[in-house]
């Protein structure tokens, strides 16, 4: 078993059973834990979930997506889903699903494509007209159409790669600092060890924030794309 800096993204788990699907299936356990309720009055951390829900709901209420059926539920659920997956991936030895393009693209591509197809079937001329923003000088029109269509077509890639790259970059940085830190544990000189421990701790706190923010950006961008849907 070779361990390199990318082995934390490896879904080959040969400790329990040699079944890679278990890694993906058990990465969803965190959703079950935070969705179950036994008591009528909630636990102490329940207002945090309400806080996330209220944040993203207020964002969706300001967009056109509210008129699309079921949009609010999808985006709120997606936001909480991404937050749980991102934060769970930061726990040591826990598989991080959102650092894989498979997960990000599976979430981003259908959402973007469904908005595009829905808009095209609703009012195709409005979608095509949206390719040319108002107030542009006339000679630039051909280039603007090309640029706008490229910008629209590249959206699923940017959406998913942004999430994947942020999460995987965070993990990779933590891995790199961790490697140096474990080396410094066995070497004389406490200063470098303490410095690296403090960097590791602070970067982990930073990664908590990045996880929440990236989930918010993912959902925010989808609500903004829904605003461009023809009315």
């Amino acid at each position, binding site marked *: 078993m070779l*361990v390199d*800096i990318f082995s*934390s993204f490896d879904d080959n788990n040969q400790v329990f059973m040699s079944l890679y699907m278990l890694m993906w299936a058990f990465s969803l356990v965190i959703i079950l834990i935070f969705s*179950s*309720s*036994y*008591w*009528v*009055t*909630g636990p*102490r*951390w*329940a*207002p*945090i979930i*309400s806080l996330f829900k209220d944040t993203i709901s207020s964002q969706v209420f300001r967009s056109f997506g509210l008129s699309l059926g079921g949009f609010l539920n999808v985006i709120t659920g997606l936001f909480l889903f991404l937050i749980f997956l991102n934060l769970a991936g*930061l*726990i*040591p*030895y826990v598989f991080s699903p959102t650092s894989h393009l498979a997960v990000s693209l599976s979430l981003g591509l259908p959402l973007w494509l469904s908005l595009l197809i829905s808009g095209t079937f609703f009012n195709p001329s409005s979608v095509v007209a949206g390719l040319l923003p108002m107030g542009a000088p006339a000679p630039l029109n051909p280039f603007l159409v090309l640029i706008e269509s490229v910008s629209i077509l590249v959206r699923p890639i940017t959406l998913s790669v942004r999430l994947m790259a942020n999460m995987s970059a965070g993990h990779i940085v*933590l*891995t*790199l*600092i*961790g*490697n140096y*830190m*474990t080396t410094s*544990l066995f070497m004389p000189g406490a200063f470098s060890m303490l410095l690296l*421990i403090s960097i*590791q*701790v*602070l*970067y*982990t*706190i930073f990664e*908590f924030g990045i996880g929440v923010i990236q989930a918010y950006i993912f959902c925010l961008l989808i609500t903004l794309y829904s605003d461009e849907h023809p009315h």
Partner: protein
Amino acid sequence: MLSTFAVRSGVYGSALLRGQAPRVLAVVPIGSRHKSEAAKQAETWEEANKIFYGPERDTKNFPHPVMPQESGKVRMGFVPENWFQFFYEKTGVTGPYFFGVGLVTTLLSKEIWVVDHGFAEVIGFFGAIWLLSNKVGAGMAKWLDNKNDLVNKERFEQPIVDAKASAQEIIANNEKAIWQEDGQKFLWEAKKENVALQLESVYRQRLAQVFKDVKSRLDYQLEVQNVKRRFEQTHMVNWIVDNVTKSITPQQEQESIKVCIAQLKKMSVPVATA
């Protein structure tokens, strides 16, 4: 979903275990068809409580679950207190710590727990959690408790307080209505007196009318007699005068005229001498 299943299985639990259809479909106590809605609800609640908390429940072996106010006690942030209690009887106070250190040392030295970036992540992650809970833990716990208390108050406590207040208001309004109904007696007496006064005044008006009519008839009779007498008197006077005038002879007339002229001459003489 689990919670609704848990609540429902309290009623249907034993029936489900035996594989029969549930016996209780709706709790409608006998003789409650003509009561008020609040009384019916109270009766339904009483019947449900008899089933849930009645003598058939074995609360010794299956006690009613009560939500704990605080989470279980832990040492060092994540190790439950009852693990230490478990070790205390056998090994004393330092037992669990010895066990923990020994376990970690074994894992590390036998390279079961390899010291790689994963190990570093453990230190980093728990260091981060320790730092965050020290810095913002207390404040965040207080803020979350406040929010939870607000939600609980709005959902469970305030409706009861509001219902009690509105019930008190309804009771007060009903008592006021009963008091107002008592006042209706006085109103009725006053109306009776008013009607009696009106009757009295109408009676007196009619009495006066009767008096006026009777007096006018009597006055008429009186006038009739007066007129008759006056008529007789006038007729008599006229008859007398007519008869006297007729009885004057011409000789008497000449004599009276001579007398008058003699008197006039007598009267006119003194005027001529002055």
